[in-house]
């Protein structure tokens, strides 16, 4: 099996791929990026917290016009994973408003983004319809 690297450092690969966030130990606010301090309470202590891999689509758009090199159409969405909002594409679904709906239940899925010159695969994530 090819060597793999996650597209972003908050995607944890392995047998059960999942997202992980920096959670403020004081107020519980969650952030996916490297933090200097908490935007909510200002404290600077964080713990890593796993995000549930299922969620509900709270908003989406179907992008039909994008930068050169970005394949279209694609579905961009805001997914509510047990109270934590996640930005992601919706994948393994027809990119049209008949198949993508507000409130639809989805689960995390991974896919290969590309392979570099050393043969390493970059693995990205998206959300796919549950039970699909």
């Amino acid at each position, binding site marked *: 099996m090819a060597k793999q690297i*996650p*597209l972003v450092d908050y995607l944890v690969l392995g047998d059960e791929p999942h997202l992980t966030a920096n959670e403020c130990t004081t107020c519980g606010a969650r952030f996916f990026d490297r933090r200097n301090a908490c935007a909510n309470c200002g404290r600077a202590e964080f713990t890593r917290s796993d995000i549930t891999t299922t969620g509900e689509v709270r*908003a989406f758009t179907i*992008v039909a016009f994008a930068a050169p090199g970005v394949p279209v159409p694609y579905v961009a969405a805001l997914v509510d994973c047990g109270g934590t909002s996640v930005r992601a594409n919706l994948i393994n679904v027809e990119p049209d408003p008949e198949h993508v709906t507000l409130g639809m239940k989805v689960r995390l899925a991974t896919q290969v983004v590309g392979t570099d010159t050393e043969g390493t695969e970059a693995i990205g994530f998206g959300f796919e319809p549950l039970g699909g």
Partner: protein
Amino acid sequence: MAPASDDLWILGIHMTKFGKHPEMDLVDLASEAVTGALADGGVTMKDMGVIGAGNLMAANAGIGQQLQKQLGQTGIPVYNVANACATGATALRVAVMAVKAGECDMGLAFGVEKLSGAGLLSGGSRKDDGTTWTPSGRYGAVAPVDGRIGTEIMPGVFAQIGMEYGHKYGGTSFELFAKISEKNHSHSTLNPLAAYSKKMTLEEIMGDIMIAYPNTRPMCSANCDGAAAAVVVSGSKLKTLSLEQQRRAVKISASILTTDPWEESCQILPDVNTLTRNAATQAYEQAGVGPEDLNLVELHDCFATAELVHYDNLMLCGVGGAVDFFNSGATWRDGTTPVNVSGGLESKGHPIAATGIANVWEVATHLRGEAGDRQIEGAKVGLTHVIGLGSACGVHILEKAAA
């Protein structure tokens, strides 16, 4: 000098035609707007005590001093500001704060942008993947993420903002959002300064090129060139000016700028709601008026999907009531709360830094009774609103001078 408690007025104001100005550079456009505003107010650069200068796309170029070198190097302080799509409102706030603080009794604000032919302003290009995956940046990304982890393009970001409202309260559809655009394009037919003033049918809007569902091309703000400028004067200084200047002056009853307070999802999908509601609340309080008093509103319809949520954020309707409010016809120019009678950003155009002063010009022109064919009869109070992602929200409430 004005006491800090003095009231504030727009003495002169001007906007250029929005559209394509290939023969004019940034300084030409800014000069036209500023010269117009000074002439409108019956004053000169020598009367100005401060300049708030707005330009976003060349924000490091010192547009304020460039303007002075053409119209008058009087040695006064210049504050060059950049605050995304709230840049013009921020420049106006600079003049307002300086006059309110008593540092001077007259101040100039202008905003200028050249955007004709610009495509997607964010997410318009994506770097190639590197030859070897190397994590970089705050997310440790090994490759560009636009289009791979959601979208960075504005039509897509604001599409989701409208869709989120629909998920929360129901009643939205592609057709509903397109109808909002139909309204603004219809309004624009009466505005000779709009970049696009062609009426569009609902079918034409829905059948146009899809950019990011549910926003088609005419549902997106129009990139164009333009500038706007305003002269702010203290109430005590205004009393020393001519009766005609006093009659045409427009009162700035509220001038507010907010940023977005932290909300759970605000770093995932920009929250344009909370800071707008906060700005509106403060503005109504400062002005001592309520949404029911407004005769017209110019709000930030950068996309048709955005206009809907701001009906609610500005409290023009009850919480969750934006769809019913629009469907009632309230926001058409003959409705109870006309919104974007200029045509809005979707048809008037959105030369970014000019927008937050051009919308003040629109409202002021109605309050003066000088809006010609599109005059809202008897207009006495109006509100302007802009949102810059990042985020910043500017709200101004303006009132007609008491005869």
